[in-house]
């Protein structure tokens, strides 16, 4: 098989895995305010745990570069939000603040899979023979990310299929970015810590600016805090094990 096609195919498999994150919501029909708050807390914890992984990987390549990327990520989200605020937004049959938040979440997760796609490509181009292992690792790692997106979207009464579709969409940059990164490994490698930092900064901002405060307003604080803390730890261990 053509190696470029192989990289793309592997990347695509990892993207499709993200859709599996919507699966648990097939079994959850009604969402009480408590369940909604829990879903936000869960998503917040999973995303913070993912930031941990991004920062850990970025600092391996350069701590200062990663932090510079993080500053850019936060500024990028602030700019995106200002841009969205100036426009009437309709999304998933909703308008206003809810639609804006869902859109920002998807944008952030999509931006973060750009960096992950680059990471996949660099890993392949680094001459590793463990291509299949890396793909499986990223694919499995994408499932809780899909879960985070679906948890927020489902709590705003989006159908499960829509949650799954947007989850997959958010990971599509992975195959698209993996190929150029694979071809230009030596060019891309120095940029990688900036990209990882950018993704971490953007994600952390959305968690702290929107997901957590929303969760605290909707449900009992200790429950949200417990769920968020446990899911941070679980996500870190999960990524470490892969």
């Amino acid at each position, binding site marked *: 098989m053509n190696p470029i096609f192989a990289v793309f195919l592997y990347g695509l498999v990892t993207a499709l895995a993200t859709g599996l994150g919507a699966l648990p919501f097939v079994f959850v029909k009604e969402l009480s305010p408590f369940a909604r708050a829990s879903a936000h807390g869960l998503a917040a914890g999973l995303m*913070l745990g993912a930031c941990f992984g991004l920062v850990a990987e970025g600092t391996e390549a350069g*701590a200062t570069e990663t932090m510079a990327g993080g500053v850019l990520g936060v500024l990028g989200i602030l700019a995106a939000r200002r841009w969205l605020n100036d426009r009437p937004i309709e999304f998933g049959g909703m308008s206003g603040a809810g639609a804006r938040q869902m859109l920002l979440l998807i944008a952030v997760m999509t931006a973060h899979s750009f960096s992950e796609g680059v990471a996949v490509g660099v890993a392949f181009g680094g001459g590793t023979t463990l291509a299949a292992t890396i793909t499986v690792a990223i694919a499995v790692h994408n499932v809780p990310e899909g879960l985070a997106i679906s948890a927020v979207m489902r709590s705003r009464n989006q159908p499960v299929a829509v949650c799954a579709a947007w989850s997959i969409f958010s990971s599509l940059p992975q195959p698209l970015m993996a190929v150029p990164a694979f071809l230009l490994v030596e060019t891309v490698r120095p940029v990688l810590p900036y990209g990882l930092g950018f993704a971490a900064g953007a994600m*952390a901002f959305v968690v702290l600016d929107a997901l957590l405060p929303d969760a605290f307003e909707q449900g009992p604080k200790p429950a949200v805090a417990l769920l968020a803390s446990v899911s941070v730890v679980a996500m870190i261990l999960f990524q470490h094990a892969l």
Partner: protein
Amino acid sequence: MLGVAYALMSSGLERGAVASGLGALVGIGGVVAAHAATKRPDAIRLGAIHAVPEGVAIGVAMAVGLPFGAAMALALAVHNVPEATVAIAGLTERGRSLSRATLLAVAVNAGQVVFAIAAFAVVAVAPAALAWGLGAAVGALVYLVMAELLPDSYRGAGRTSIALVAIVAVGMVVLLHDRAR
């Protein structure tokens, strides 16, 4: 505080992922239990609960290495300043003098010294406990951030400014941690 947890967790994972993971669950459970047992939560009692994981964090970090422990102590010292400001403000509102309130706030955090030495001693005797201790400190600190610090801050200031300040603080600790390695 999240930055401190990040630094501790990466050290813990190097020394045993399962032990630090289980340790984290113990840490979360410990704070949940301590909160449940506290009948009248005020700044002093809550401060005393904080002092335990913060002390353990410094102790286990010292056991990992002196530079790491010093960085940890510095980060937590900076974190203690605004925490004490809140506690002292609460006390003076209820009629304590400023000097007595300050003394009380320092006394509460003195528990950190005790727990730091205790954690360091335990790890010195039983090195296998290090990953557990690192994990437990992480779990407790993360839960405290989620259950107390963040909700309290959201009540006091806008979401965006809280998010920005928190991210800058985490970034500084991560850089500090990287230098200390």
